[in-house]
């Protein structure tokens, strides 16, 4: 039976390995043919900014890795609206135009629909 699994990525792309290891987990889960979603909130939304120069600190750029998600059939990608607003970032500045913004009420509803939450 397919399960609804939501990955929540809440940390900045660099400075710690959490965001990268979250992305690895999402890409792994994509091979299991489940009903996957991915939500960026808090500092996790910084992963979605273009023009990341990760080479300069010996890292791989999220801006080049994240666009692969739809190729792995991870198509339900959400961004928490209030997290964007708190950081002065608008949706049209993000890497994807296919991300859906959700306010806190809609995030609550999304969480409630899931069988499992994997929070990073």
């Amino acid at each position, binding site marked *: 039976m397919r399960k609804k*699994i939501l990955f929540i990525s809440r940390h900045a792309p660099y400075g710690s390995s*959490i965001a990268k290891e979250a992305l*690895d987990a999402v890409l*792994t*889960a994509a091979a*299991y043919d*489940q009903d996957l979603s991915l939500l960026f909130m808090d500092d996790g939304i910084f992963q979605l900014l273009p023009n990341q120069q990760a080479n300069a600190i010996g890292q791989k750029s999220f801006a080049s890795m994240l666009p692969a998600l739809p190729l792995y059939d991870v198509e339900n990608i959400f961004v928490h609206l209030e997290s964007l607003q708190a950081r002065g970032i608008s949706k049209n500045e993000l890497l994807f135009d296919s991300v859906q913004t959700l306010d806190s009420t809609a995030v609550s509803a999304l969480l409630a629909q899931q069988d*499992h939450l994997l*929070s*990073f």
Partner: protein
Amino acid sequence: MIFSLAVYSPPYSSQASESAYRFAEALLAEGHSLYRIFFYQDGVHNSSQLLTPPQDETDFTSRWRELSERHHIDLVVCIAAALKRGILDEEEANRYEKPAHNLHEGFALSGLGQLVDAALMSDRLVTFGG
């Protein structure tokens, strides 16, 4: 109910491993079952047999091993996260020509798919640390 746990923080520097252990004991005491404990990110350090705490502090690795033996629980360590942090079993030490290996008996190195599998096979997946 079937549970699995995911542990993302190392022992000693974080309370997460202690909380995960206590949660495991509590759910088993309540009659639930524990399918798997998956160690990821810095949580992989829970599986090193070289952890040498002072006598008046918890020996996390041995305690996980003892819990696993007592209740037949799968202890799985993410192989990619483990190798880059210097946690190797004998096979990986040979493969990469390293002079030593340190994965504690009773733990298994395996892929991240085992975390996804734990979610699929369990009613609840509870995350500690990160």
